[in-house]
């Protein structure tokens, strides 16, 4: 699975979730004249969910695609480099033996 398709799936699920929480009947759960910090519950709810959705979109889009790769497939260029530096001699001698 590519990082792009994982990203698409996550974003699409945010969209579906948004459709759910921004509509009735979920809205009717908050459609009461209750006040939090003096502000009507429905407004608090809508702005809060709105903010949460925006933040999740920020998180999903800003994570670097490489982090989506499964662990074992992660490219490890740094490790390869150290391998080359630490043990170049046996490789060469092996080559000679082979010849």
């Amino acid at each position: 699975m590519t990082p792009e398709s994982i990203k698409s799936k996550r974003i699409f699920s945010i969209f579906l979730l948004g459709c759910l929480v921004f509509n009735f009947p979920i809205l009717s759960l908050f459609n009461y004249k209750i006040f939090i910090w003096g502000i009507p519950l429905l407004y608090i709810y809508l702005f809060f969910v709105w903010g949460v959705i925006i933040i999740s979109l920020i998180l999903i889009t800003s994570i670097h695609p490489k982090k989506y790769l499964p662990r074992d497939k992660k490219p490890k260029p740094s490790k390869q480099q150290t391998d080359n530096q630490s043990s170049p001699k046996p490789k060469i001698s092996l080559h000679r033996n082979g010849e």
Partner: protein
Amino acid sequence: MLETGIIFFFSFGYMGLLFAIAYYGDRRADIGRSIISNPYIYALSLAVYCTAWTFYGSVGRAVHTGPSFLSIYLGPTLMAALGWVVLKKIIRISKIHHITSIADFIASRYGKSASLAGVVTIIAVLGVIPYISLQLKAISISFQIIQNYPDIVMPSVHFDQIPVLKDTTFHVAVLLALFAILFGTRHLEATERHEGLVAAIAFESIVKLVAFLTVGIFITYFIYNGFGDIISKARENPELHELFTVGMENGTSADWGVSIFLSMMAIICLPRQFQIGVVENVNEEHINKAMWLFPLYLLAINIFVLPAAFAGLLHFPDGSVDADTFVLTLPMIENQEGLALFVYIGGMSAATSMVIVETIALSTMICNDLVMPVLLWMPLTRFAQRSDLSHFLLTIRRAGIALTLLLGYTYFRFIGEFYPLVSIGLVSFAAVAQFAPAIIGGIFWKDGNRMGALCGLIGGFAVWIYTLFLPSLVQAGFIHQNFVLEGPFGIALLKPFQLFGLEGFNSITHAVFWSMLVNIGAYVGVSVFTRPSPIEATQAALFVDVFKYSRGPGESFFWRGTASVPDLRSLLSRFLGKQRADEGLSEYMNRHQIDWNKSLTSDAGLVNHAEKLLAGAIGSASARVMVASVVKEESLGIEEVMNILDETRQVIEYSRELEKTSLELQAANERLKELDKLKDDFISTVTHELRTPLTSVRALAEILHDNPNIGKSQKKQFTQIIINETERLTRLISKVLDLQKIESGRMEWQVTPINIKKVINDALTALSQLLKEKGIRSQLNLPQKVPAALGDRDRLFQVMVNLISNAVKFCEPHGGLITINLWIKNNYLQVDVIDNGIGISKENQKIIFDKFRQVKDTSRGKPTGSGLGLTITKRIIDYHNGKIWVESEPGKGTAFSFTLPIMGKGENVKR
């Protein structure tokens, strides 16, 4: 005191600033240093969504219906998230097909249909005109209110009583038209992008946001002590309690859902959103950031709507002041002169940005999709034969901009005043939402076809006219109100607000339900029951599978015809102007490394490229007609299209690939078998050759072992034979090893400059004993001086020995003559070894250099030698880049000749 002059000064000053920004943006674009190519500008320009309706109307709607104003901004938030899937696809398609408007997009998707493009354009113009008039109304009202500062006077005069030339709204409309013409139609672009315009729009988005936030903060924290303070004061008034929640009537949840749906669709279906979001998009990666920046913008501009609404209601409890003007009248009543002016400018920025982009988008559609097809198909005008049409096209567009603004102004004067800001906006949303099934279906559903889209659009729009547009004429007094109250001709079932007795919803929800039912129903139904034409099927696949097909440079396989390059060139330069046409064509030709002057006939790719260039200027439907006029098209049959596009094509291709691979494998297998057989032959021959001497060695050794009394002389003879036979064995084995080494490339060659004359003499010396024994004479014809050749001395020595001993074998003992010639040719040396022996027949000459081929000679019994000598000789000569051949006539003798390149002249020895 705000002088009218000061207001004018700021209004025109602001417009001047916009001009400056747009000019700067265009200049930067011209020198290739775009200022709009970043996601922040893209997101800000998307906020053209927020018009005067947002700026003034949100508060008005909050006052009338409470939280429901928010649904208009929640929809776009959801759509922005979906933008990753939908918008990105639309952008990719539009970039590949050079699509410049929503009409073009729909037309192109359904087979570049001109009729569809025309219908979409008409719907867009009729649907959006009220929306434009709403902006003009907002500018006009806000101007009249602020003009009376510090008094708050609602503009009560009917607009249609002011002479047009004295009406500020008219002046504003003219100024806006001027701006749109200057920056929207500077030149015909193949991509129809306007960098300066986008820069100005982004700037306007900043202005309106800052203005609204400033007035919001002023109201909330300077007039009152924060949100809690305003709301607790509002709670003291029981009449305002309804505004804390969404009403609990029957249809509320449906109304809410529909307005979220409409605002979602508006983000892609409104011509201005399509223009900014798709056509003006610089890089589709910008969606990445815009998908949260744009919702964030919407959230920010809505935070202070509720406090402003309550503050307005608390300040003007008697309802004397229109709630749509609260954001302006509140600073005025607090004597905040500067702030009021800033708010006025903010409202103007919201209105102007919308009007400018919308008119440009509409004018493109009017020009490409209404005027062009008519002109192209009118034979009388001979329009299509004109030489330069690019200026003419620009004139049409400019006229289009003027026309839309004029229509907007007319609507404003005669109908607009009867409506509050919000409902006009939603009526427009409902109209453009008719595009949604054709667009969304078009990019995800291949089977949607032209007929279906056409029926859906016309049906849906007809319902819209009946349920929303005609009732608005009733309100304006053009139609008798019985039409709404009792239904046409008194038929209650046909009442436009309660069609077929559907009740309990507001008029928008009602209209959206019926129009979408008809639209989607017709789109899907007709699509399922009719067959698409080949071009529709092609376009459908290209749109739906755009990410699959666009990995390449975006070439479509639709055109298979050819056209002459001069024809194409003149066609393009008629519409784009000579310079742009040449640029566009040479860009393609450079990319594909085609020589301008040499190739007179263009391939399908170039034709396709030309059509896309043209589509950018005049729309896909007209472009297709024009290109078809110069192209000798080999039309595609439906089967062919299906073959090209269907999944089966890939399967077929895949199986062909498999077939090819398996054939290759089969061939390789055959070769392996052949090699295997050769190897078997080789081994059996070698073992046979080994067994013959071994058998005699063993036999003689057994005789010696079993008969100790054997005579001394005989014993000596036997042991001599044993020694000879083992020597022969050794020679054979070392030859096999040599050959094997040469063939596997593991032979170590010691290449040095050598004197071939010396090698010949050495070989002859080494064999002199043999010659003497057999009584064979030798004759040497060697030149005095021989140029050096590069080679391996030992191997060439071996070659000479092989050839001479071979000659010895063929010669009759006593009387045989071996002649060795050395020739110095142009760039090589040639050595001949000639005997006067029995010769070799023609058939045998061909195979003599093969392994283990011994010339069987019945008259002489068992052949001597291994059969490998000549093979090795040939390999050695090959290695030295020489040639070896044989000439012979049976009974007369044989001549073996080989060549060696002279050092520094011919080809060098392989290293």
